[in-house]
């Protein structure tokens, strides 16, 4: 996006601070889809998520002149969204408190899911019940061309407990760094890694049939 505008990050921020409409339009175009995705992990519907994104951009208009580049613009943007989405989620009575003990019903499912892949008793304890195969060397882009596969991944993400969904969305889908994610979500690094691992384990299970050609 910055390449399209021919701006580096300081240039981009400066243009936003100067209220450049062309740059704002491009930035809103570029990030709104990611913001909607993240907002949906906090609030109960897409319509509310879109409202949260609108509120987020208002926050950006109001706050951009105070932005001091202590973090990247993207991280700052996600933090504004997260704060607004948390407030909105609380109001919508769906938002779950952070932490591993959140009463989301299946916070430990990722762990037990992985445990179920291993022998638990006898001399083979800790070994694979059914050793994993190498997945087909098809590129992720090609795998995602299958609508069925993409839907399976999207549904797996939707079914995650909210905090796991938030972590995997920021870390793996948006590519935000570990430290910044901890900052945005106000969780510890250890907690974040546990949540991320559980989330990844569940998505891996859903992806398995599409890259292996069987229904395991």
């Amino acid at each position, binding site marked *: 996006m910055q390449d399209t505008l021919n701006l580096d990050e300081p240039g981009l921020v400066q243009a936003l601070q100067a209220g450049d*409409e062309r740059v704002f339009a491009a930035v809103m175009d570029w990030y709104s889809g990611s913001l909607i*995705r993240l907002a949906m992990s906090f609030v109960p519907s897409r319509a509310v998520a879109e409202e949260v994104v609108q509120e987020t951009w208002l926050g950006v208009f109001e706050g951009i002149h105070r932005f001091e580049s202590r973090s990247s613009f993207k991280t700052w943007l996600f933090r504004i969204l997260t704060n607004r989405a948390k407030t909105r989620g609380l109001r919508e009575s769906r938002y779950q408190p952070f932490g591993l003990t959140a009463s989301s019903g299946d916070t430990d499912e990722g762990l037990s899911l*992985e445990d179920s892949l291993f022998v638990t008793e006898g001399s083979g304890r800790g070994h694979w019940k059914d050793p994993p195969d190498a997945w087909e060397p098809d590129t992720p882009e090609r795998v995602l061309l299958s609508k069925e596969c993409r839907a399976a991944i999207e549904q797996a993400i939707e079914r995650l407990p909210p905090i796991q969904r938030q972590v995997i969305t920021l870390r793996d889908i948006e590519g935000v760094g570990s430290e910044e994610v901890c900052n945005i979500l106000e969780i510890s690094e250890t907690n974040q890694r546990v949540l991320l691992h559980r989330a*990844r384990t569940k998505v891996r299970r859903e992806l398995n049939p599409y890259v292996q050609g069987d229904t395991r």
Partner: protein
Amino acid sequence: MDTNLKHKLMRYMAGNFSCQEIAQLITDYLDGSLTLSERVRFQLHLGLCFACRNYLGQMKYTIATLRQLPPEPVPQQVKEELLERFRTWKQRHPQPSVKSETE
């Protein structure tokens, strides 16, 4: 083999991880948060265990696939509303304060 190295290897082998522990540690490994000793034991296990190598490959593939997921589509109406809100805001704030040239 050098005896020292052999003993070191044996010690690492004795404290080697099970496949289940390897699976549990993959995210820590990929995040670079294992201790040196854990990393050595992790890599030693991988060197000997094709199943765990495959599982690590699957997890990396999962991450790469997630990274390729396109953003949610933004309805044209939402885009237009956003731009309208921006214009309204700008009219009310015709001279936004720009901090410094380095910002």
